[in-house]
């Protein structure tokens, strides 16, 4: 079996969870990976300070799409204020595959837009 493109990665890529738009929504952000042109947006609905629902959208590689899909299941139910505390390792551990330096931004794009939507900080997670 492939180290990177494991079955669950390909499964999330082909059938991404929480994918699409969400209208109405309370928070949103949109961003790019300047290295490859991938783009990703998010719509978030908030209830009682928690993420009640969310949808990612955009285009990207298997790693960025699978990462968004897998992470989306963690984001739902999370206090909005906690998103800003998440770091790069959190996403990478969640993915459970070896991420090279070049693919790092693919994996982190979902967290970047989530932080953009919730804290306004649009820098790359470290």
């Amino acid at each position, binding site marked *: 079996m492939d180290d990177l*493109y494991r079955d669950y990665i390909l499964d999330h890529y082909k059938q991404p969870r929480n994918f699409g738009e969400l209208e109405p929504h309370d928070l949103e952000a949109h961003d790019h990976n300047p290295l*490859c042109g991938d783009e990703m947006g998010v719509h978030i609905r908030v209830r009682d300070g928690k993420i009640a629902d969310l949808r990612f959208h955009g285009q*990207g590689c298997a790693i960025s799409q699978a990462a968004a899909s897998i992470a989306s299941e963690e984001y739902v139910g999370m206090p909005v204020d906690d998103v800003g505390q998440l770091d790069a390792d959190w996403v990478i551990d969640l993915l459970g595959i070896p991420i090279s330096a070049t693919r790092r931004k693919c994996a982190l794009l979902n967290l970047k837009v989530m932080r953009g939507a919730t804290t306004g900080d649009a820098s790359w997670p470290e």
Partner: protein
Amino acid sequence: MATSATTPRLHVRSDFPIFAREIDGRPLIYLDSAATSQKPAAVIEAMDDYYRRHNANIHRGVYTLAQEATDLFEGARERVAAFTGAETATTIFTRNATEAINLVAYAWGRANVGPGDVVLITQMEHHSNIVPWQLLCQGTGAELRYLDVSDEGTLSLDQLDAELAGGRVKLAAFAHISNVLGTINPVAEMASRVRAAGALSLVDASQAVPQIPVDVAAVGADFYVWTGHKALGPTGIGVLHGRRDVLEAMPPFLGGGDMIRVVDWQESTWNDLPWKFEAGTSMIAEAVGLGAAVDYLGELGMENVRAHERALAAYALERLADVGGVRVIGPPDPDERGGVISFELEGVHPHDVAELINRQNVCVRAGHHCAMPLMRRLGVPATARASLGPYNDASDVDALVEALVNAKKVFA
């Protein structure tokens, strides 16, 4: 299988030291020459020799080393100019093609472009031939307009005429060969129509100089730019060929050492061409390396390089059809395109394609290739791109095809 491709005309791989390298016991399948070329030993050794035996600052030194360095540098300029059919005095060394275009946009543009004027570019340009014009137009109130790219990846001369007929075009800038589509544009014809309309033209030949015989005088553009590292030369050097009268009338771009005649307290006068546009210590070793690169290409013969890559591209277009699910972008006729093949593989994002085939040491580029507007026009987020150099042969294409077949399996 095209026999012309399986019996390539050039056998030069052993001139390029990098192919001695193996990664995980496998040879290197380098198909990314449109991003940067590999370098023949002659180029590397020329720079090495410069640093080991002749290194000194140029132009103002009386001692032997400084004279040698000056001769090596200016001699390289002469050979570079001769290689592209340009004049030596109007052959200006820049950092890369990008800086050459910015030089024109700043020095010529800020002095000649104003509100209501049009700068005309095309939808197939590299960011380096887009962003400088955006900045110029934003700074001057001019309008940036685009020639369309057809579904086949070509430009329309009729649309060019229509734009020129508007009477507002001050400068038109276009690629000689597209770095994404491979399209070879009819630049001499375009430059002549632009000139007839009283406007100036800039040709971005970054992909052309390494791939086809070029003749700057025959193209007849006002500015013709290219970049060393894609033409078997080193990083850190590019070339701007300009028309003498245009360059002479232009104010300088960067100020500093070497580009001046006399510096007084409040103002200065400028050196002759080409030095007027070369501020500060030049890319001396890089010029020496680029001189060696054009010598090498000249010995191969650019007709031979073109024939070799054309045959190989034709072979690649044929073989890619075998993979299944590959959609090639750009002109289908190998006579109308260079050795740059962008493609999509159904169901697999280009980034994943590149990652997967790298496991067999096949090096291709994936992404927007610094041409986001073109990606938008084509309606794709990114493409994978295989591009050829004189060192490639049919075995590289075969390796690409095999790697793509394997990549498809992972995503099946």
